[in-house]
């Protein structure tokens, strides 16, 4: 096996075939790996949900399902909006700067919403996934501090959130409640699941 010309041709074609084979295998893997992605059926089931909020009264909260998750729509009273300033100091991430569940640009304001009165948030605690209970009534209550302004309490491990879904300090939950992509189709028609950036 010391004929250099024979070796050279074997080596050339070995390298050529191996490279081509590797490239081919890579391309061949694409369909199989892609088949794991959500199917059209899953995407259709996860389509945006339209909600009519004309009947929503101040202080009322309605829940809709989007992608299998509960999405809360809370029409906040002026008192509830005022309370947001009072809770600022007690919050872990008052300006919603954390990146885990990024808050959309249109909700990066003091109310965490497009319209100040209407809060839209996913009702799933950022700790381990339970759905927090409504504790909208201010004042002292079991499991809540005496200066409770109104918000939500997660029954599983005690995390608390204000009426803008912002998480309090020293709680198991690390993040504010997620604000899903959403937009207003008209004054009273809210589309949850889509906003200008995700639209085709």
């Amino acid at each position, binding site marked *: 096996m010391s004929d250099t010309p024979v070796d050279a041709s074997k080596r*050339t074609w070995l390298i050529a075939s191996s490279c081509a084979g590797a490239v081919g295998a890579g391309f061949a893997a694409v369909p199989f790996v892609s088949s794991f992605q959500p199917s059209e059926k899953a*995407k259709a089931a996860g389509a945006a949900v339209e909600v009519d909020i004309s009947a929503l009264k101040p202080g009322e909260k309605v829940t809709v399902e989007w992608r299998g998750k509960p999405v809360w729509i809370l029409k906040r009273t002026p008192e509830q909006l005022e309370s947001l300033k009072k809770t600022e100091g007690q919050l872990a991430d008052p300006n919603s700067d954390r990146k885990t569940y990024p808050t959309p640009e249109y909700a990066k304001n003091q109310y965490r919403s497009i319209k100040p009165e209407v809060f839209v948030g996913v009702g799933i605690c950022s700790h381990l996934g339970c759905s927090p209970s409504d504790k909208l009534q201010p004042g002292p209550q079991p499991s809540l501090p005496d200066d409770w302004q109104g918000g939500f309490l997660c029954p599983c491990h005690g995390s608390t959130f204000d009426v803008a879904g912002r998480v309090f300090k020293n709680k198991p939950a690390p993040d504010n409640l997620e604000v899903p992509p959403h937009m207003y189709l008209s004054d009273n028609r809210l589309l949850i699941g889509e906003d200008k950036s995700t639209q085709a």
Partner: protein
Amino acid sequence: MKKLIITLIAALGIVTGAHAAGADTLAWDKAPNKLNDLPALQNGAKLFVNYCLSCHSAAFMRFNRLRDIGLTEQQIKDNLLFSTDKVGETMKAAIDPKQAKEWFGANPPDLTLIARSRSGHGGTGADYLYTYLRTYYRDPAKATGWNNMVFPNVGMPHVLWELQGEREPQFETRQENGHEVKVFKGWKQLSPGIMTPLQYDAAVGDLVGYLQWMAEPAQNSRVRVGVWVLLFLGVFTIFTWRLNAAFWKNI
């Protein structure tokens, strides 16, 4: 090997000769190929939604797949959404299947795969559908008032009759093998439709093209990807051929 193949072909020839093509219905015309004509497919989609979805479902076809034939989601929502308001939903029929069975004798079949399932000896499924939709004729003896040349006694009425008008087939009797046969000679237009025969044929061509596309929406990209795959494999085959030669040179 060669002798084997020749004998094989000869034997097949003998056997196929014995196989008669029993055609008691009309031979199928060839459907025009509109699979790469997006405007035609879009027109076909419009015809399908307007004329067919009232009774037939296309249960495996999602509305938003129509993006593949060049429509935007907005266009689909504005013009084509039928029996639903969500563009990701499938095309369900407007009719209740039980009522349909009562009225027509059979539940109108789902049309998603009709262009694939109707293929046969006479041609492709598209050929059959193209011929079927153009060979309806007035038949007072039938409950619907219509009959069809490739699907005798069909329970479906001529949904497109306003476009084609009413026609009657003309036959002539001939002597064949010692007995009389009725041979189809042509059509007589009894009353005109909105479209001329050429326009109607083009419209049906569009509709059938759409049905053909709907039966396998991936087919256009299938062919496109296939060309690249085969080119790549061609190169790969050359490489492995030379690799083999390099190793076997000294044996």
